[in-house]
């Protein structure tokens, strides 16, 4: 009934109606945030912390609360003014007060009423705007803090966190915290002021009528709080179901060729319908809860109004009160009903701020596993020697499963070392330890004699570069992508790097050349092109240690050979580590490490290892056998 309750459903119903982030919602059970961080309900301290954050804008907060109090007081004046005006006219009729005097009185009342209305409008504007502003300032601070934290949390954290959960925290939970001030705190102040002072005024005017007029308050307050909490509880469930639905759709669209190839459209529609029905059922339930509550609240309010009207009417007839007084009561009720109905929203605002806040702060308070030591010094490269000394390692999530055991080796500038081994043997882990993506469990890794844990991360990571197998493509120009690690580089350097990586010719064919925008998803760069981009990007860094982590798997052998020869000069000043499967591309290394189950089982040059006749030789035979009957007149794989 919107004559008395203007707000539309959208104010009351926390359905993220047009939210593009609907997928990847918080998934209870599989999110680290639900598991460790937000497990303990630290509701009160979270609320206190958000409040403290709000207070960092002391002026805005004071003015916002001040405006709220003034606006509420002004609003409380209106019913009495209206009642007075009505009584003035009535008195004039009854007791023969001179028309001119009444006119004068009415004009004064009207002017006061007008002034009060205008002022109330202005203060409401101030109240709402300032409250929003406080929230937005907090949101800005949190946004930047969150971004900074995400960037600095180490790999071991990101290995376990779902990106969808992080996005949820950074966008939706942050919103929940932002809304706290305007949706929960300011509304509470307004409510306490209106109900408290209003009740006092009503009851002091007439006890019975006052109590009757307020009779709807506890009922509506309770109903609206319970309903909001119910909706909140089902909200998470609904998000979960919508998440399943999104996944069904997204997978179908991504794998559309498989679906078509197996003529599985009917089966896919079945999957869709099942997910869809389950979500729809819950949405219907929620609609029912919501609508029933709205109708009940309206009814109780109107019923109380009816009581005031009939009992008040009798009092008017009995001469106990005037018609103006009765109108005052009725107007008061219409003023009170809005904030009272909003109690549910206030409760929701607190609940939301507390859960969202504890998730968000839980993340912001996380310790960063890998950071600079207190006395960290910049890394100084002199002759460029990398040493592994008895290094062992296990991933933090599975500490009793050692990945590397007592690895020791040494490489010098201009040397190349190759690491081979079966899948899961720990090859890539070696690559991740050198730039300190993870810290060793025991042993030590040194660069020119400096323990990598004792130098600053920034200088270490500048000096050590890993060419990843699956290069991340940022949505920007290809030029910016290449210069990602050195955004101040000039165009010539960028071109030279992409030439070496055999990417230059391809780029020139693109519609806008180096200025072409490429993106993470979509049909732009093939696997091989991404790997070449990764190589170009790494060359821009001019690292002292360059590690190819199976990063040429999708590049054909001929192109790879061209890349290698183009990089020869580049490699002269650096340590090169090649991790891979294709023996032809790593057999010329100065030394080859064969790793199995985290241990170095063979170590030597290609020739040494072939002569030795061990694991490496077996792998070599395996690769060559596939082709050797086709290679009658050539020797080896080269």
């Amino acid at each position, binding site marked *: 009934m919107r004559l008395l309750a203007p707000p539309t459903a959208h104010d009351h119903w926390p359905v993220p109606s047009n939210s593009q982030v609907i997928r990847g919602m918080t998934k209870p059970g599989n999110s680290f945030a639900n598991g460790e961080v937000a497990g303990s309900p630290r509701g009160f301290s979270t609320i206190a912390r958000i409040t403290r954050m709000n207070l960092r804008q002391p002026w805005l907060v004071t003015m916002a609360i001040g405006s709220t109090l003034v606006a509420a007081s002004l609003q409380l004046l209106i019913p009495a003014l209206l009642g007075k005006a*009505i009584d003035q006219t009535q008195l004039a009729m009854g007791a023969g007060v001179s028309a001119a005097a009444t006119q004068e009185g009415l004009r004064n009342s009207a002017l006061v009423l007008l002034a009060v209305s205008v002022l109330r409008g202005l203060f409401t504007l101030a109240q709402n705007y300032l409250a929003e502003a406080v929230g937005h300032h907090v949101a800005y601070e949190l946004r930047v803090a969150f971004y900074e934290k995400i960037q*600095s949390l180490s790999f071991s954290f990101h290995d376990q966190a779902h990106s969808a959960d992080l996005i949820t925290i950074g966008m939706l939970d942050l919103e929940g915290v932002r809304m706290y001030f305007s949706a929960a705190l300011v509304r509470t102040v307004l409510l306490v002021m209106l109900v408290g002072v209003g009740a006092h005024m009503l009851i002091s005017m007439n006890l019975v009528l006052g109590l009757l007029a307020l009779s709807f308050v506890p009922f509506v307050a309770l109903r609206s709080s319970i309903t909001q909490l119910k909706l909140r509880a089902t909200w998470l469930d609904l998000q979960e179901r919508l998440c399943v639905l999104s996944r069904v759709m997204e997978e179908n669209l991504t794998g559309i060729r498989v679906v078509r190839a197996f003529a599985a459209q009917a089966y896919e529609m079945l999957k869709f319908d099942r997910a869809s029905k389950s979500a729809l059922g819950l949405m219907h339930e929620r609609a029912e809860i919501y609508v029933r509550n709205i109708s009940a609240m309206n009814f109780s309010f109107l019923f109380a109004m009816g009581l005031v009207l009939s009992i008040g009417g009798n009092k008017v007839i009995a001469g106990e009160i005037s018609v103006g007084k009765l109108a005052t009561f009725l107007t008061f009720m219409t003023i009170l009903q809005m904030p009272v109905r909003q109690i549910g929203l206030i409760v929701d605002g607190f609940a939301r701020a507390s859960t969202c806040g504890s998730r968000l702060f839980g993340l912001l308070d996380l310790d960063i596993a890998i950071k600079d030591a207190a006395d960290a010094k910049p890394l100084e490269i002199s002759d460029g020697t990398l040493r592994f000394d008895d290094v062992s390692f296990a991933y933090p999530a599975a500490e009793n499963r050692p990945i590397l055991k007592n690895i020791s080796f040494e490489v010098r500038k201009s040397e190349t070392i190759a690491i081979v081994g079966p899948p899961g043997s720990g090859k890539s882990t070696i690559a991740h330890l050198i730039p300190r993506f993870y810290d060793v469990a025991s042993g030590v890794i040194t660069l020119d004699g400096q323990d990598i844990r004792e130098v600053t991360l920034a200088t270490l990571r500048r000096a050590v570069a890993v060419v990843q197998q699956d290069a991340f493509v940022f949505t920007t120009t290809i030029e910016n992508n290449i210069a990602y690690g050195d955004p101040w580089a000039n165009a010539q350097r960028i071109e030279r790097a992409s030439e070496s990586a055999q990417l230059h010719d391809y780029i020139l064919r693109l519609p806008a050349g180096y200025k072409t925008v490429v993106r993470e998803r979509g049909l732009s760069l093939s696997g091989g092109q991404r790997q070449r981009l990764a190589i170009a990007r790494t060359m821009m860094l001019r690292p002292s240690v360059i590690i190819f982590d199976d990063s040429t798997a999708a590049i054909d052998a001929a192109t790879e050979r061209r890349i290698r020869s183009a990089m020869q000069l580049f490699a002269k000043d650096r340590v090169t580590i090649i991790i891979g*499967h294709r023996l032809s591309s790593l057999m010329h290394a100065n030394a080859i490490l064969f790793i199995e189950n985290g241990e170095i089982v063979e170590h030597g040059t290609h020739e040494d290892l072939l002569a030795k006749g061990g694991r490496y030789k077996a792998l070599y035979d395996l690769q060559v056998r596939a082709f050797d009957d086709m290679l009658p007149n050539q020797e080896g794989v080269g």
Partner: protein
Amino acid sequence: MLQGGEVETERDDAHDDRRPPHAVVGSHRIEEAIFGQAFDKNIVRRIWAFVRPYRTNLIVSVAAMLILTGTQLLVPLIIRFAIDHGMQPGSGDRSALLAAACAFLFAISVNFGASYTQEIVIYKMAEKVLFDIRRATFGHLQDVALSFMDKTEVGRLMSRLQGDVNSMQELLETSVFCLGDITLLFGIVFVMLWLDVRLGLLTFSVLPVLLIVRLFWLPRARGAFMAANETNSLSNGALAEAIHGVRAVQSMDRQQVNLMLYDDKARANLKTHLTAAKYAQMMVPIVDSLTGVAMAVVIVVGGSMVMSDRIDVGVMVAFLFYIQRFFDPIRSLTLQYSIMQRAMASGKRLTDVLDVKLEVQDKANATVLTPEMDGSIEFRNVTFGYDPQHPVLKNVSFRVNPGETVALVGPTGSGKSSAMALVHRFYDVQKGQVLVGGYDVRDLTQKSLGRQIAMVLQEPFLFTGTVFENIRYHKAEATREEVIEAAMAVGAHSFIVRLPGGYDAALCEGGSNLSLGQRQLISFARALVANTKILVLDEATANIDSYTEMLIQKALVRLLEGRTGLVIAHRLATVRGADRIVVLQNGKVAESGKHEQLIEMGGLYSRLYRLNHASFDDTPDEQLNTSEAAGYRSEARSSGETAHSCKRFAER
């Protein structure tokens, strides 16, 4: 010192607060329009088609809305009646008051029922329509031409299926509420004029002021809201990028630069939101002041009218009540206006998807392909291109006899993948015919064709679910025994049982918890369970470690046993294993025959063979020494690799 020193100096002079020239975070712009026209007849007509099945519900809801509006208008009138007839000071009429109380009770009971009915019916209906539209769109995407799917990002389609479909739901709810608001507005105007024409007109005199103010306010406010929306998406986009690309960021030590760039975006977001908040609140004092003016008018003019006995006090009270609510429908109408605009833009995008043509459709009298067909595949003078001007396959003819394995080989861009897609009728040929089991594929139902051909794609795609479910994807009725048998046959059993949960192990998105080789083996098992006479297979190109590679080669032999096989072969071992080899070059069959024959012929195949690459695709054009290649290639699909080769050629 290594070159590190040089890097340092370069960085030093760069740090004089210059922005890095090659750095951004997140995307630069928003790609889709947020608002459209508020009303677009065509779109409304299209949406109506989805609402039609529920029109009874719609009528009920609108009827309830009218009743509801009626009771809303009635409440102040009953108050007025009670005052004027029940409470004359001193000489009240208690029976009139009782009547008023009863009327009031009746009105609010009706109000209760009508409000419940109106809202529940419209909400449920809107939700149903939302799901219907989503289903129709999703279902349509199952059948649209693959050429459309090829060039459309999944993310974009998902935002059709989520955001845009949701605004359709909003649209429906809003239209009924809008209608309610308009009725209420007219109702109030009517009742006020009916109570007293002069006082009514005088009160409405504030309206033009409101309209004029709104006229100035609306475009500016909308601009401010859109700006806030946009900066919000931009900063969220940058955040998402930081989360997804965090490893790249850290390994290249870009945190500082990124934080600086992100701070700019977050600041811009703060600024636009503050502006938007200002605009959003600006109307509050104006509406409040106008309400004040209207009330003042009623008090002064109405008061003197009461004194001169032209109207009753009750009328004045009723006026004061109406005025307090008069601006609400106007306020919510403005809100609804922008929802409408957003919905129209969404509707446009949705109808665009729904209108994508179904290029490949079953004929009315299409034959059902049965498992009893002979299992042959034949290409007869097939010409086909994604762009009809530039055919990818030109007059291609070859036949795969039942039980035979044919390897398709040729450099990248030679049309192998297209040929494979045609067997499944993913696309229709331009000229010629593709026959499966002796039938033109265009004469068969797509469903039966799909059921008789198993396909293994180059990139194995697995669905979220268990290993078991994935293996029997093609044949939902397959038993556990069949599944295990298939997995054993392709050599996947041993790693599957080692997974936590074995066959019931849950696969993450796209099977990312398995290695590429393992995924490949599962997709082989899937094809084996399907047990069809025909197998079409695109061999993986990526380098798989030698151990898994060996397993795959063995599995392949098992998979092709007793089946008609058309294999896009990349590995020499696979090619050797085939009964016959068809060499494609620039969309034409260059040569075909057995391995020995082809070697003897000394043509393209023997050249490819002698070049000794692990995979035929690796072979760069210049090594093929076919100048013809360049010319054709530049016409062919501009695949990245192709483009690369072309350029090389042009330079010579």
